[in-house]
């Protein structure tokens, strides 16, 4: 040891600037009142975050490893739900500009295309996402069928799924009329005519659907109301049941 040199001892380094900032940001009273568990970097916190967060608690905290393979589900059920949420967002934005009257519907959609900033994008998103949702729901049904996931104890959840398929088709169909162009009017005329051919009650049902003898102003307001509030509410209820029962029935199906 040279003369004048002080002896070095191992001392713990004090906290760096970043750790101090991190500590101030995430370990303060307010933050911890919002997020009760720490950052999910340890198995304990990873389970806590799933169990305590309202949005994540649809999931179990653990999952069999076959179920995270993409090819097992192709994410189809989750995608259908995600598309439903996207449709809600774009749909609400479209509602700002759209008035469901025969006088205004078409011009509103036209204005959306030309006058409203990102209006065309929102409408396109809503339209293509809606088509995609019908597709993912159908494909999800195929996936569930071919993996035998409807078998006991999941029988009733399959029935709920069939109801959700019908609701998806109805949601798409009611939305189809809203632009009030020739495509909309005649597609809905063709569609409701099919219902009208039902034996005995057909005429009455189709009259209720259209609010008249042909697709007109009453049909437009009926379809609009069903599209933006009635059917989404019913679908949300059935979706809750659907997701709840996946958990209650022991998660996704797997070999016994």
């Amino acid at each position: 040891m040279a003369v004048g040199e002080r002896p070095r001892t191992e001392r713990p380094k004090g906290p760096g600037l970043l750790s101090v900032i991190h500590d101030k940001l995430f370990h303060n009273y307010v933050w911890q009142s919002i997020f009760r568990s720490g950052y999910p970097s340890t198995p304990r916190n990873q389970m806590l975050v799933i169990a305590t967060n309202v949005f994540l608690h649809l999931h179990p905290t653990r999952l069999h490893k076959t179920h995270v393979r993409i090819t097992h589900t192709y994410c189809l059920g989750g995608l259908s739900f995600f598309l439903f949420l996207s449709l809600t967002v774009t749909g609400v934005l479209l509602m700002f500009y759209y008035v469901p009257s025969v006088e205004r519907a078409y011009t509103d959609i036209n204005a959306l295309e030309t006058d409203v900033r990102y209006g065309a994008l929102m409408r396109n998103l809503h339209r293509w996402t809606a088509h995609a949702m019908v597709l993912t729901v159908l494909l999800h049904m195929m996936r569930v069928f071919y993996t035998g996931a409807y078998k006991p104890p999941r029988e009733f959840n399959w029935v709920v799924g069939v109801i959700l398929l019908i609701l998806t088709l109805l949601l798409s169909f009611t939305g189809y009329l809203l632009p009030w162009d020739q495509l909309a009017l005649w597609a809905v005329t063709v569609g409701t005519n099919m219902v009208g051919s039902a034996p005995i009650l057909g005429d009455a049902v189709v009259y209720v659907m259209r609010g008249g003898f042909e697709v007109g102003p009453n049909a437009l307001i009926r379809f609009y109301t069903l599209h933006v509030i009635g059917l989404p509410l019913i679908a949300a209820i059935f979706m809750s049941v659907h997701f709840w029962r996946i958990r209650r029935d022991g998660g996704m199906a797997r070999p016994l």
Partner: protein
Amino acid sequence: MAAVTRTQVRARREREEEVLVWPDLVFIEFIAAVLFTLAFVIISALFNAPLINHANPDVTPNPSKAPWYFMNLQELLLHMHPALAGVIVPTFALVLLAAIPYVDRSNDGQGVYFGTPNSVRITIWSAVYSAWFTVWLILFDQGRHTYIWQKLTGKKWIGDWNLPDWVPGIGAALWHLAFVRNTRAIQTEWTWRIPVKGLQLGGGDGHLDWPRDFQHIPMPFNGTSWPKWGGDSGAPPPEWYQHLPGWLTGLFWYDLNLNLPAFVVEILIPTMVMVGLSALLIYLLWRVGWLRTRRDVIVALFSGFLVVYWVMTIVGAAFRGAGQDLVLPWSVPHIDG
């Protein structure tokens, strides 16, 4: 005691096969959501949603088509009675779909694709079978098989042969072979008559005009305003009937004149074809010994249903031109007004 140990061992092994949902599932979901959001924003930036002329009830576009997921029903509508195609068949299909888990109740083979040993080939075979028959039935019902026959052989189709009326009475009805041209020809081109000369049945004048009466066969509830309670004497309906609400008398009073040729063509034959081909599929698969469980039967029927659904959707969307005529995709008119 031994049993308890075994469960514990099993539980531990399962724990090792499990992964934590955060991060192993949540990240996949997040990435999928981001990718799909991006994909849809790009698609929406590139392709505009269709918007054609203002709705006009006086101008019917030709063809008028339902949304794509109902085009299969619209296609079905061309081949059978509207009530059958538009309501009864879809209702049946949905009810049967919902009933699947209550028919196939076994626990075996769940959680893996194609859980039974034969289900892959059952699926493929059912798909090919259903696609084959659907396409040919559509071609047949449009009379297109005669066109294909003439193109291939250079000869006229058998249905156009004017065979001599060798046996009077049975006559043209059988020999004309109209039904091999298409199903509707049975109704429109057959002479509907009883093949016994001089036969007279019922009726006020002791004579029935059968070609006409085949299309107006009286049914029990038959008429236009109220049941003929007193027969032809025209007695008024009983007191209680007059107090029934209108919709109920309407229900009573559904016009059930039976049009026999239309019934055969629009209801009987389509139903027999739909039920018969499904039954034949199951029978064939059973004969080759592929069907071991109910699951196998359901796989065959479900796969067949899916293929019929998609084939009819594609035909309805891409192969139906003006007047719902069967055309090639590039001949389907583009509707923009």
